[in-house]
């Protein structure tokens, strides 16, 4: 069938392929139409209707048979050649099951890894929020501060001004992650919720399945609208799917909230990494924030906001307008807004959720799986090359009896297509199984629903199909390349024998192996660098002791304690715990380092430090009780700890860290100097050593502490230095808490070490995945090398026999083959080193205290690669050394 004919018949073929039922109906219709016409004709000729009908049927013949013949004619919907090639291709695969299985396995791993990682990227970065409308126009809003690299939050008044003035924005809304304590027996649990602007559900075009969404105005007034929309999950689990739930009251942080709506199933809110369980209007912010009511405070920055741009508006245009608005705000409110602007972030760069944290890991993943795919393709290409060599004879016969080159190419491409389609199918399965893998790898805090799905949607499938096509081309064209060079006359004669490592024909295969080794070497180096970083992070001193300190909390807020009661309770509990045996020291702190909660920050001024005009000093601080430094094991460099007498009636005091001393007092002893915190002056009474505050990878930064009593929060964490096991400690603390108040509950307890591990989880995930995939790549490369070497040995038995006959012993031949394998490896490692030196820089953020060019790591990778290469060539070499010269030379 030539191209033109194929083209002309394409429509009808496609129709019979895709609309078989319609074709069937048309056939029936056509036959009926014929008979009707014949009957009319017969009647016109004077027959009776009955007679006309019989005559027409007789003349037509057996309707069923004829219809069946018509079906047979269009039966093969695919072009004949294609169908034939397909059948032939399958037969070929079936004939060498080992080859086929290996090739398909390689492709499954390569394509599966890619699809899985893209499904994560899709689910986390591009469409992170299921059921939210118009995510392609959705951007995150955050403040940028002059001189600070990290973006900051917005304040509510700034947000309102922005919303009023931004004409390029369709709508903007607030969704601030928060938590509420729900007591379950004597166990308290934090449930994740969201403080949202009243337009939230309207803006994301989501309708509650029960009840209503928020009404305009419900986000105004301090504590004026205690209403809540609950998640489907919460409705199911906590309210047992009660259809009458609307109007019921749920206490959130001990404030009764009326349930007004239930969100649909599958909606998890707008915070990457977390499944939000309830939504309350921002007017209730004071209930959920220990820092008090902030809606009228332009200096209080706590808002996570999003904006939908109008259709057709570019990010740059919108950013320009927003910057103008921010500049006006700076001018109008210099006291709070000096040096601050507002920025738009793409969803995948959202500064205030887990997306940004996972971004470097995902970037590395995408690169790594790309490598694995290339290695897999190289491997399959290699396998196909071997086979094309074996099938050279077949190809030559085909050419000799008149097949055109394009015909052979088509056949090879179809064989490639079969392989890649099967590989892709396997890959999709693998991706489907792995879609939740990322969540599994990340440690989760008890009671907090994690939501980090991979989404296998249309786009991921498209990508998979794209990869499949690409692979088809690669694996199909590699052998085709070989065919182009077929020399008919030469090849139909018997094969010439090769010499180990010396033949041009093998150059392409060797090239592929070098390529594979090069790529796997890069992965090895990357994996080793990440592993080394993780090791360094783990051995880095966080500045406090992690092993013997447990962290928990008491549900004071949820149980309705006000500030005076909380103060009394905290003191009493500390007194009771201090006399328990096994507990060395206890302290309250507003925030535990390396946890999820963020520290408060405040603009400060310091005695004797003249700030540059544009610089607004914002320093983070923690509110801690007496004994905090002793409990966490943070050394005090000078001065004293806070004591009970540093209470609300005493003069304000503060303890600063070493970096703060270096930055603001040029290293001079600051005792007796003052810092201004939230507008009030506090006297420095001590200097603490630097420690890690939010991440193990952070560099030393200014930080200070104030007494909990002088900047009170009702729900601080309780830190306990203990020699007992976690369980015993928990039981002891619970006993003491219940002795004071039976109604109180404790949060789950963890050690500081667990918090540290959690903070390191992105590194852990990266290391696990890169090493797994790196190991996979190494295995594939070893298989490739093994294949090339065995083939070379098999091809050159005559040469080997000759060498033996001339006096080479087994050891000589062993060396010959292994050195050939090592030569290929050396080539791969050489290219790999050059490439790795260039690309490991991209690991950037994931590396910690390790140079991307660390010679030790490169050496290690080299050692692993060389060992693998020796093992891969060992078996072929052994086979070579067993050559029987007498037999070989006779043949």
């Amino acid at each position: 069938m030539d191209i033109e004919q194929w083209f002309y018949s394409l429509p009808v073929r496609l129709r019979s392929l895709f609309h078989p039922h319609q074709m069937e109906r048309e056939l029936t219709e056509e036959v009926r139409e014929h008979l009707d016409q014949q009957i009319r004709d017969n009647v016109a000729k004077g027959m009776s209707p009955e007679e006309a009908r019989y005559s027409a049927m007789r003349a037509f013949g057996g309707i069923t048979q004829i219809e069946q013949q018509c079906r047979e004619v269009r039966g093969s919907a695919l072009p004949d050649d294609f169908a034939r090639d397909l059948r032939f291709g399958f037969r070929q695969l079936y004939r060498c099951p080992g080859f086929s299985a290996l090739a398909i396995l390689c492709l499954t791993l390569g394509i599966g890894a890619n699809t899985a990682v893209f499904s994560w990227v899709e689910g986390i970065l591009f469409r992170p929020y299921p059921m939210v409308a118009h995510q392609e126009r959705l951007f995150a809003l955050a403040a940028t501060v002059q001189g600070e690299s990290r973006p900051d939050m917005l304040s509510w008044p700034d947000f309102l001004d922005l919303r009023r003035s931004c004409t390029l924005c369709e709508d903007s809304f607030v969704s601030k992650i928060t938590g509420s304590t729900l007591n379950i027996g004597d166990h308290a649990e934090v449930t994740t919720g969201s403080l949202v602007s009243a337009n939230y559900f309207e803006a994301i075009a989501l309708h509650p399945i029960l009840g209503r969404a928020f009404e305009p105005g419900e986000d105004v007034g301090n504590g004026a609208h205690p209403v809540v929309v609950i998640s489907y999950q919460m409705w199911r689990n906590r309210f047992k799917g009660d259809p009458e739930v609307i109007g019921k009251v749920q206490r959130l942080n001990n404030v009764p909230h009326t349930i007004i709506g239930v969100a649909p199933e599958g909606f998890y809110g707008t915070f990457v990494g977390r499944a939000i369980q309830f939504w309350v209007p921002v007017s209730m912010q004071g209930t959920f924030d220990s820092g008090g009511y902030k809606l009228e405070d332009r200096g209080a920055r706590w808002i996570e906001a999003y904006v939908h741009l109008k259709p057709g508006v570019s990010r740059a245009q919108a950013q320009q307008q927003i910057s103008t608005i921010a500049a006006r705000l700076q001018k109008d409110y210099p006291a709070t807004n000096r040096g601050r602007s507002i920025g738009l972030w793409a969803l995948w760069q959202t500064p205030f959720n887990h997306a940004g944290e996972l971004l470097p890991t995902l970037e590395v993943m995408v690169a790594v799986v790309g490598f694995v795919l290339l290695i897999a393709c190289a491997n399959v290409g290699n396998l196909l090359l071997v086979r094309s060599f074996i099938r050279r004879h077949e190809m030559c016969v085909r050419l000799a009896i008149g097949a055109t080159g394009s015909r052979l190419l088509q056949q090879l491409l179809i064989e490639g297509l079969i392989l890649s389609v099967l590989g892709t199918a396997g890959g999709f399965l693998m991706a489907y199984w792995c879609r939740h893998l990322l969540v599994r790898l990340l440690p989760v805090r008890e009671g907090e629903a994690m939501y980090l799905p991979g989404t296998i949607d249309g786009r991921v499938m498209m990508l998979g199909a794209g990869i499949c096509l690409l692979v088809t081309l690669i694996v199909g064209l590699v052998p085709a390349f070989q065919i182009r060079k077929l020399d008919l006359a030469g090849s139909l004669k018997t094969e010439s024998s090769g010499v180990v490592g010396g033949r041009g024909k093998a150059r392409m295969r060797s090239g592929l192996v070098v390529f594979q080794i090069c790529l796997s070497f890069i992965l090895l180096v990357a994996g080793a660098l990440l592993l080394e970083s993780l090791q360094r992070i783990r051995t880095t001193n966080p500045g406090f002791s992690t092993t013997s300190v447990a962290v928990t909390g008491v549900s004071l807020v949820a149980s309705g304690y006000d500030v005076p009661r909380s103060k009394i309770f905290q003191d009493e509990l500390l007194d009771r715990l201090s006399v328990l045996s096994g507990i060395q020291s206890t302290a309250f702190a507003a925030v535990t380092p390396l946890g999820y909660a963020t520290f408060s920050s405040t603009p400060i001024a310091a005695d004797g430090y003249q700030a540059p005009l544009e610089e607004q000093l914002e320093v983070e601080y923690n509110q801690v009780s007496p004994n905090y430094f002793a409990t966490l094991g943070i050394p005090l460099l000078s001065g004293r700890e806070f004591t009970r007498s540093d209470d609300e009636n005493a003069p304000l005091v503060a303890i600063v860290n070493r970096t703060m001393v270096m930055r603001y007092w040029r290293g001079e002893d600051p005792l007796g100097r003052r810092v201004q915190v939230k507008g009030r002056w506090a006297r420095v009474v001590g200097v603490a050593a630097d420690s890690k505050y939010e991440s193990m990878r952070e560099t030393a930064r200014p930080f200070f502490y104030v007494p909990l009593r002088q900047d009170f929060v009702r729900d601080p964490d309780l830190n306990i230095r203990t020699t007992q096991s976690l369980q015993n400690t928990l039981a002891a603390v619970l006993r003491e808490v219940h002795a004071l108040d039976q109604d109180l509950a404790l949060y789950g307890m963890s050690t500081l070490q667990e918090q540290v591990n959690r903070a390191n989880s992105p590194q852990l995930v990266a290391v696990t995945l890169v090493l797994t995939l790196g190991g996979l790549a190494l295995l594939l490369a070893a298989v490739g090398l093994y294949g090339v070497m065995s083939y070379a040995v098999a091809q050159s038995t005559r040469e080997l026999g000759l060498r033996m006959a001339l006096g080479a012993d087994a050891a000589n031949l062993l060396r010959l083959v292994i050195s050939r394998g090592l030569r290929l490896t050396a080539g791969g490692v050489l290219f790999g080193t050059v490439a790795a030196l260039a690309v490991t820089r991209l690991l950037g953020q994931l590396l910690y205290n390790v140079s991307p060019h660390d010679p030790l790591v490169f050496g290690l990778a080299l050692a692993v690669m060389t060992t693998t290469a020796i093992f891969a060539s060992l078996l072929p070499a052994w086979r070579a050394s067993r050559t029987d010269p007498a037999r070989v030379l006779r043949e």
Partner: protein
Amino acid sequence: MSKPSDLVQGTLDMLVLKILALQPLNGWAISQRLKQISSHVLGVSDGSLYPALHKLEHRGWIRAQWKASENNRLTKCYSLTRLGRKQLEKETANWNRVSAAISGIVRLEEA
């Protein structure tokens, strides 16, 4: 009701192409024309025309379209494609050559 023999089948294809070269027709009309032209010599049933039509359509030589007939009923109307016209020319030339040769041979025997 028998399936037309191979020889007749080949001839049938050509005849159908020839008929359609004159004007687009539906299946019934083609069968009527076949009977007129071949004076029932081919001896095939009306129905066996249809597999032939479908085959020709599948080869891209003819094209089918649903059209309203004069009495406003939808009827499947076949017409020749450009490719079909080429095919017809080819087959006609071939036929002429073969039939000339065959009649030459037949005359030779009679002589």
